[in-house]
């Protein structure tokens, strides 16, 4: 029989009272979603790990200092922190290349491209990784809505308000994002067989 999981609210309360195992459960339960959200923005494994760590340090500091008051919305709160850190990093990285090449291009961009190539070669061997690559290839408005709804679990109304469009536009973008992903998966023979995926 599947063990009944404790809700996030209960785990946070236990953690506030000093139960480190409760925090470990929260981390194990949500770290993949938080990490994937960050990764889809920064597109680099190691940077995403650093930002995940920064996110969770903020979470620890806020809860342990008694400043946490999200009342049952733990995961959306954490994902907002993660999203903000990732966007800040992405903007800074684009604005301030550390080394400029002789032809004026940024070595950061070059490195990023190189890392992506090596990353791309590795992830092409993995079905899950291929799907993440298809997500990166979506038109930006579709990718944004997909990230916010599927990974950050924002409602379509919240997404519409955050992106300054009507809810119908947000819904349409999501629909096209899913349809375009399906086309890519079909084109690249990505199998839908659930037996291929581990629980």
């Amino acid at each position, binding site marked *: 029989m599947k063990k009944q999981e404790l809700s996030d609210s209960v785990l946070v309360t236990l953690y506030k009272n000093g139960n480190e195992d409760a925090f470990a459960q929260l981390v194990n339960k949500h770290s993949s979603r938080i*990490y994937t959200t960050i990764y889809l923005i920064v597109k680099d494994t190691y940077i995403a790990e650093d930002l*995940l760590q920064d996110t*969770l340090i903020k979470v*620890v500091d806020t809860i*342990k200092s008694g400043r946490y008051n999200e009342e049952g919305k733990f995961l959306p709160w954490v994902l907002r922190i993660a999203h903000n850190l990732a966007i800040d990093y992405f903007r800074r990285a684009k604005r301030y290349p550390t080394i400029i090449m002789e032809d004026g291009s940024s070595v950061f961009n070059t490195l990023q491209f190189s890392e992506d190539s090596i990353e791309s070669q590795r992830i092409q061997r993995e079905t899950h990784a291929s799907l993440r690559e298809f997500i990166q290839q979506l038109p930006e408005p579709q990718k944004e809505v997909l990230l916010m709804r599927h990974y950050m679990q924002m409602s379509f109304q919240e997404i519409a308000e955050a992106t300054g469009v009507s809810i119908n536009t947000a819904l*349409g973008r999501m*629909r096209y994002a*899913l349809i375009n992903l399906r086309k890519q998966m079909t084109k690249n023979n990505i199998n*839908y067989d659930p037996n291929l995926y581990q629980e």
Partner: protein
Amino acid sequence: MIQTSTKNEIVRYLYQETTEEENASIENDLIFNEEARNLYIELASVKRSLNKGFKNPGKRVIDNILNYSKSLNLRSA
């Protein structure tokens, strides 16, 4: 051909943002309208794939944060 509003309702239904009343209407569409049903099946299959495609962080990162949290207990003890 199904209307755009119906297609958008299917997306809301897929992500469980519809009311019980809306669910009854949408599920009726899914039963009797093949185009709506095919759209739902297509979108649901991609959503399932997305759910399986989360990337896992390295163990080092998780251990670091758990140790950091524990270290704060030691400091305040």
